[in-house]
């Protein structure tokens, strides 16, 4: 009986000690972790809007640039980042997050469009769990850069904003190179990107027409 009681007490005290240490570490680093997240997002917004610092600046510089050149607004239920020129007034573009299912898990991306909403400024896929070297290549520059400067016309019913075609067979402004060996990732990406753009672009056009952004 005595031994059993000791076991229980021992486990209790040990758990208390270890969870306290881990919790303390967590609390001490929480701000830093959150800051990392925020900074990553800010850097991403600046990059897709082509405002981004050309070379990797310090965290403080990045945060400062973000607060000077980006105004935060909302687009339906998602955030909208309004990129501003050096003067702090002229709009140079709009950025907003899109997401959808990939092959292994959700893919999240940031899309930036020109101020007249007629053209893509840039796109960056920043969170995904696709196979490294295959679907994971959506984060590579050649893939993301394809979107730059593409015209953004709301397509007629049954059509899509963009199509991913086998490399080498893409023609015309709405067709882009898919990733060899990552058929499923490409197929799903094409689908969710289209669905998200169909949700956001008309909304953005509408907000702009009513000069709300």
């Amino acid at each position, binding site marked *: 009986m005595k031994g059993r009681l000791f076991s229980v007490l021992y486990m209790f005290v040990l758990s208390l000690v*270890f969870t306290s240490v881990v919790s303390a570490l967590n609390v001490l680093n929480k701000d*830093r972790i959150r800051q990392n997240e925020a900074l990553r997002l800010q850097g991403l917004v600046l990059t897709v809007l082509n405002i981004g610092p050309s070379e990797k600046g310090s965290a403080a510089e990045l945060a400062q640039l973000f607060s000077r050149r980006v105004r935060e607004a909302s687009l339906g239920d998602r955030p909208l980042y309004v990129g501003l020129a050096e003067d702090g007034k002229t709009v140079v573009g709009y950025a907003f997050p899109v997401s959808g299912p990939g092959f292994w898990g959700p893919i999240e991306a940031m899309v930036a469009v020109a101020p007249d909403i007629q053209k893509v400024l840039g796109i960056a896929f920043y969170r995904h*769990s696709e*196979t490294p*070297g295959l679907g994971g290549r959506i984060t590579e520059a050649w893939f993301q850069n394809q979107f730059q400067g593409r015209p953004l016309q709301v397509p007629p019913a049954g059509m899509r904003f963009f199509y991913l075609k086998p490399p080498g067979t893409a023609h015309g402004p709405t067709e882009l190179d898919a990733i060899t060996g990552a058929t499923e990732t490409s197929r799903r990406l094409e689908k969710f990107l289209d669905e998200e753009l169909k949700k956001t672009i008309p909304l953005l056009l509408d907000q702009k027409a009513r000069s709300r952004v």
Partner: protein
Amino acid sequence: MASPKARTIFRKGVWDENPVFRQILGICSALAVTNLMTNTLIMGLGLIFVTAMSGATVSALRKITPDRIRMMVQVLIIASYVMMVDIFLQAYLPDISKALGPYVGLIITNCIIMGRCEGYARVNPVWPAFLDGIASGTGYALVLLAIAFIRELLGFGSVFGIRVLPEGWVPWTIMVMAPAGFFMLAVFIWVAYSVENRATRKRG
């Protein structure tokens, strides 16, 4: 007295009783994180830290821990250190933390650590237990790095993210996928045993 003993511990951990190719432990992560060397290195360092610290802690508590609940105690200790590693990576190496994803948390279930706690730390003093953890962790990390080297080289044409093969190199897609982990591990075990057998024959 300490140095020859340390040498024995390291010999055992890295070669004679290497956790991966001798005891076939820790295979899950050996397959999952070995397609990029940077990730593999961080994973290896994480495991070395957790194994060494858990070993030392289990050993320090070995005289007062009731036998009946020792497994629970070990899991608690291991899980705490793994969470510390996870928090550290999130706070200071966010990119690596993103890349490793759930595998850091899965160090908890890595049989190597529990194996060393049960098999060594529970009945040995703190310092040898600590060294034993480092040795076993190193054994694990070295095997994984060897596998990752070949997988990254052939699958991406790079080493630690630095391009070494010419631009025209056609990456072997299979190398970055899970099956290549199995192939490379099997090849590694084969080579390691051949080397060992030749050495024994010579001695005999």
